[in-house]
């Protein structure tokens, strides 16, 4: 026997001793892209949260240094008001990451549950639940954002201003951004999960567990959902950028974060004006854009790693 097969058998032995979850984590942490992405995201998060302590520039302090290209004092250059772009990018990260996280959570919790239940129960329930999704899907979320913002923003602002501080109050508009974004983010997820569950529930292994008398919850969570982890995670990695970009679209329309706050989306929306044939202040679009792209790529690699590690079929694949 060659040495190759002996390591294989050794692995089998160690695998037999640990639970599937432990094996999954071990697989997860073995992949190089995952480690690099993880470190990058950790560093980014630390920087984002500690930035007010580190930075010498306030993100909303205007100066005379308008449109200065990157130098040793302003690493990312300055914008039209002479504000430090590096500072703004890090402040913007807070909102963008939060928006992405909220969107992902909503689509994970509501979307997956909704889709799985609809697909599993089937029949009239499925029909009704999916029509509800259709109805919500057909109503443009931008209407929700405007209605919520204009109807409640003032009250919420006054409320937050009275009970907390002005700083909290200025985040009031974001609450509605989140609700509006959350309202749309789970719909497609629900549809996809439902489609998958529909095709899985008549498979042999599901029929088998049914015959063995397993409860519906057990079948759904132990047998069906683990089989669609992959597509859920892939779709999540699609949702996060979609939500962050949707926020940039709202900023483009003037419905995003309130100035002088920034988000990556609003920075990019401002930066697009720099792409013209006349004169280009490249740093205004390149730096926020690159930050966004790198972060999304890292999230994506992390998602891929997760998917590979937790897929129930991946044991047999290796």
């Amino acid at each position, binding site marked *: 026997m060659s040495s190759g097969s002996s390591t294989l058998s050794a692995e089998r032995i160690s695998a037999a001793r640990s639970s599937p979850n432990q094996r999954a984590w071990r697989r997860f942490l073995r992949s190089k892209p995952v480690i690099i992405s993880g470190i990058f995201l950790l560093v980014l998060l630390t920087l984002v949260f500690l930035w007010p302590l580190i930075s010498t520039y306030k993100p*909303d*302090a*205007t100066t005379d240094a*308008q449109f200065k290209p990157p130098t040793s004092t302003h690493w990312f250059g300055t914008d*039209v*008001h002479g504000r430090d772009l590096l500072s703004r990018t890090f402040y913007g990260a807070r909102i963008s990451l939060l928006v992405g996280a909220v969107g992902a959570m909503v689509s994970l919790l509501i979307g997956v549950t909704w889709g799985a239940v609809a697909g599993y129960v089937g029949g009239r329930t499925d029909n009704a639940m999916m029509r509800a999704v259709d109805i919500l899907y057909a109503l443009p979320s931008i209407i929700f954002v*405007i209605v919520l913002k*204009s109807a409640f923003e003032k009250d919420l602002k006054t409320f937050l*201003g009275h009970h907390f501080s*002005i700083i909290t109050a*200025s985040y009031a508009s974001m609450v509605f951004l989140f609700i509006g974004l959350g309202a749309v983010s789970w719909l497609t997820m629900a549809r996809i999960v439902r489609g998958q569950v529909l095709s899985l529930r008549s498979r042999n292994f599901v029929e088998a567990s049914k015959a063995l008398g397993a409860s519906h919850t057990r079948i759904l969570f132990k047998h069906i959902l683990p089989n669609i982890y992959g597509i859920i995670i892939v779709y999540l990695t699609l949702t996060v950028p979609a939500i962050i970009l949707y926020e940039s679209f709202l900023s483009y*329309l*003037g*419905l995003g974060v*309130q*100035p*002088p706050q920034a988000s990556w989306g609003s920075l990019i929306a*401002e930066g697009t*004006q*720099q*792409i*013209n*044939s*006349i*004169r280009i202040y490249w740093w205004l679009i390149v730096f926020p854009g690159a930050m966004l792209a790198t972060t999304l790529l890292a999230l994506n690699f992390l998602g891929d790693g997760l998917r590979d590690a937790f897929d129930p079929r991946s044991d047999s694949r290796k």
Partner: protein
Amino acid sequence: MSQITLKSNATTRVTTTRSYDNLNRLRSIRSSASVSPVASFNYIDRDANQPLRVDLADGSFWIYEYGGRVSSRKRWSEVFFGIRILTSFRISQCALTMVLWLTFFLLVGCSRSEPKADLVIINGAEPGTLDPALVTVQADSRIVRALFEGLTRLDPKTANAIPGLAQRWEISPDGINYTFYLRTNAVWSTGEPITAADVVYSWRRVLDPITGSEYAGQLFFIKNAEDFSSGKIKDPAQVGVKAIDARTLQVELVSPTPFFVDLCAFQTLAVVPRQTIEKFGDRWLMATPLPTSGAYTLEFWHLLDKIRVRKNPRHWDAANIQNNLVDFLPSESAMTAMNLYQAGQADILWDKNLIPADLMDVLGQRPDCHRYNYLGTFFMRFNILKKPFDDVRVRKALAMTIDRKRIVERITRSGEEPATHFVPGGMSIYTSPPGYGYDPETARKLLAEAGFPNGKNFPPFQYLFKAGETDKQIAVELQAMWREQLGIPMEIRQAESKVYYTSLHDMDYDVGRSSWIGDYNDPNTFLDMFMSNNGNNYTGWKNAKYDELVREGNRQMDPKKREKILQQAETLLIHDDLPITPIYFYAGVLFYRTNEVEGIHYNLLDEHPIFAIKKLKRKT
């Protein structure tokens, strides 16, 4: 007379009969089908030079043009056909279907053939309406002015009123009664004469509350006009406009109005076709033929795509119309507009919303960029019913800490002038009194006097503005200026346009961004806005002395005395009471290549009549 018969298998399918007049011009086409599905239809030439459209039952249409050219375009039926293909969805056929769709759509795209226009203008957002009574946007009004003319029209050079449909007019010595004499050769584009009764109809229509004209106020200088418009008088005959005979019109005003002849050139007062409007209702502009009173007829109006106008050969001044076909491209993106212009797809770019402010420091140096002053002011309203803005010292302090020079140099960048007074400069009959400039020292003192030393205890307040890049940048600058110079907390409230308007109208704001563009060349177009009863006041400011001064000024026939009185009024507005503070005067910016386009002149109203603009042949 010619007859064409289409036969197949010895059966007659369609017979088309064309008749021509003595000059061999196509007068009518009559088609009749003996076998379905070919539809039957008739076409009669209407003498005008416009295409006529025939809608067939299956949703396609044919367009006949003078000279017998026939073009047709199918749209809807094909789309449904495509959907039918899609419903027979099978994996094996999927690719084939897609290829079919692709070819089909490419074919649809190709089927468009229009002659090139002589002049292409990028005009601003898609017009909401081209009805003279309803139009409110300056960019839209430029198209309207090409189609419909009033008693007077604007001189292309100076934008002063010159005779339009009226050849001459007489003013009674007291300045109250006007008699207009219409030209004998003033006719609609369809050939009927334009009569004094048409003018009376058009003006009454504007005033009639049913029409819902937002600019009806332009006619309130006429006797009983305001009462009729607000429903106090029901009988339109009581309004002071009367047709003496077909060519004579008599107008009675409320009080002497020195700028009434200028007003007659304003698009709201243009003459519109009564029969068409009564027949087609709100969609009257879609009627074919559409009788127009101006230098052009409406060739077609493709939403978001193109509005094409054609020279009206029956216009009284047709000889001086410099171009035949003019296209207006609606554009909402400054970048696209600039790209189209640079690529030579358009000859003129002229909407101020389409000028990329960021790039004006480079663009402004180019020979095809033309800048000039016009009557427009960007200013700020204070809600003086709210604390602490009820205190004039606070208002003054805020006004004095605005570094207007920084705003025009760094943000707007198009050659705007910092404004310390409300009425823009340049009017020959009026010069504004001085207001406040940048003086943070005095401002801090005033604020301390008002009870807020170094901004202490100053309540948080909001600056309201309409979402937009330049306005957002101005808001950020203002916030920083007030925070740094006065130590007061201003919050930025960016609202989408309708929220912004309602908040302003309902006085649900603290400090609000505003702007005003003059309608006619007279200080009154700016000053009457802040009279106590004016619907556009929105500041809560009521000052009896101001009202009296403006009224007295407008009664005054002597220009020198009038200027003095109006100056006193403006001093109240921008120096003593300060319910508003001006920030800058707009600059007009036009892009056109001087070696290709001529006939554009700069004037205070920012009006450039289309008929005077000539496209020169490109020299190579």
